[in-house]
């Protein structure tokens, strides 16, 4: 190996250490409430010279359960993981399952002053554009019960109190039948001494997720078999698959660590 390569390798390692150090120990920029849970989808858009899609979870979750899109329609949980194409959507898959002009607006062609236009494209392919979304986050969520982080909305209470009605069935995608009711609450022991234990409510989660969004992939079903740390949750694993991305972020300790310390 030439000495230059060795030197380059040393410099590379040093710069990597420096780069990690630069972002560590500092606060990230706060995500505005109306942008929490937004996902930029750009598998093919820019390659086809179209603006990437900015998908807002807040509006979709106000109308549908998580399960409906992530299980029945088959969207991956990772941003950009689904790789749906325009053809898929036109066939009525993925976004096209609802955005077909019946369930929700479609990207149809219209004739305007003799020109063929597709006026709705921008409502999804909006990245970097000034677009009239028809619905404003602040107005839409104004009366909803509040929470401290994320969208600033207490979605659980919003659903319970009827501010939002979330649809859990879509013809052609969902299977009819009664869902399994498992209303148990599980207590999870906190690892750090003095930290209140966690009370996990299956009931609250099942409203949005059914069983299958978490089990068995994210969490096994044998009690105590899946071991995870808060650190891993912050890294986007386990509870962090949703909490910190779309569901309330794990900054509000007490929402989970809710058992009184004896």
């Amino acid at each position, binding site marked *: 190996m030439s*000495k230059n390569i*060795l*030197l380059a390798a*040393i*410099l590379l390692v*040093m710069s990597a250490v420096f780069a990690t*150090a630069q972002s*560590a*120990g*500092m*606060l*990230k*920029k*706060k995500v505005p409430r109306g942008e929490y849970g937004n996902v930029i989808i750009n598998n093919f858009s820019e390659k086809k010279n179209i603006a990437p899609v900015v998908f807002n979870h807040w509006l979709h979750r106000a109308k549908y359960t998580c399960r409906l899109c992530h299980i029945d329609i088959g969207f991956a949980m990772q941003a950009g993981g689904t790789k749906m194409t325009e053809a898929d959507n036109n066939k009525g898959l993925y976004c096209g399952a609802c955005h077909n002009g019946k369930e929700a607006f479609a990207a149809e062609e219209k004739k305007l002053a003799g020109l063929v236009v597709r006026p709705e494209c921008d409502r999804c392919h909006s990245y970097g554009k000034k677009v009239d979304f028809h619905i404003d986050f602040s107005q839409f969520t104004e009366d909803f019960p509040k929470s*401290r*982080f994320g969208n600033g909305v207490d979605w659980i209470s919003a659903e319970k109190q009827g501010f939002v009605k979330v649809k859990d069935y879509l013809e052609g995608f969902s299977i009819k039948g009664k869902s399994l009711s498992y209303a148990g609450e599980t207590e999870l022991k906190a690892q*750090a*001494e*003095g*930290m*209140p234990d966690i009370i996990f409510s299956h009931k609250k989660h099942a409203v949005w997720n059914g069983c299958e969004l978490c089990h068995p992939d994210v969490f096994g079903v044998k009690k105590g078999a899946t071991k995870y740390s*808060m*650190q891993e949750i*912050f890294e986007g694993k386990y509870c962090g698959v949703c909490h910190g991305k779309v569901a309330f972020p*794990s*900054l*509000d*300790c*007490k929402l989970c*660590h809710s058992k009184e*310390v004896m």
Partner: protein
Amino acid sequence: MTADFILRSALLGLLVSTQALAQWQLPPLPEPELYGNILINRTSTKNGVLPATFSHWSHRSKYTCRVCHLELEFNMALNSTPITENKNKKGQYCGACHNDKIAFGHNSKHCGKCHNGNIRYGIENADKLADFPETPFGNRIDWVKAMNTGLIKPANYLNEQYEAVTFKKNLILESEWSMTPDAIFPHDVHESWLDCSNCHPEIFNIKKKTTKHFAMSYILDNKFCGVCHGKVAFPIDDCKRCHPKKK
């Protein structure tokens, strides 16, 4: 391995160590009454008004850090919060209190109280703090003691009714250098001013025994403890407060 390579490595090592030495120079401290004072000028000058002066000490005697830096959504870095005149008038940011009810309003009568471009503005008010418990650095006020003895009773919430998780654990942070005694970290003192989320997980992840990633040089660079200590909370000149066994 050639002599040339050894020479290059040595030079590189020297460069890194001189940089490290340079970092060890503690930044000069302002007068105690000006410690934590800032001039906010994100858009002021552009909009033809003078930058807004802000004194942390006058605010922290009435409100905990968390009221502004969590509830009112002020960022920790200067000029990074999207404060606008309009938002203030709608009751956001400064306007949450500066509304003529809690504190003087954001209106034409009072412009000059903030938009004066003078970081020394109101310095004479610091006389009120003359009898406060002392420390050698920063504002030269032991704010923790002032709170614990009831000299100040900063409100912990403005509109929110919330009772945060309490976690009282005192941490002992093992020192990297054998010459330096371990540092202590009391959760409860920090909790009386801050929300868990002000520090976790972005500034400090919660992994145990990871002092390596927040060596003093980073703190001097305003990272980790240095996000607050050195700007508003007591500066790190005050070695003993964290390394109590230091002689």
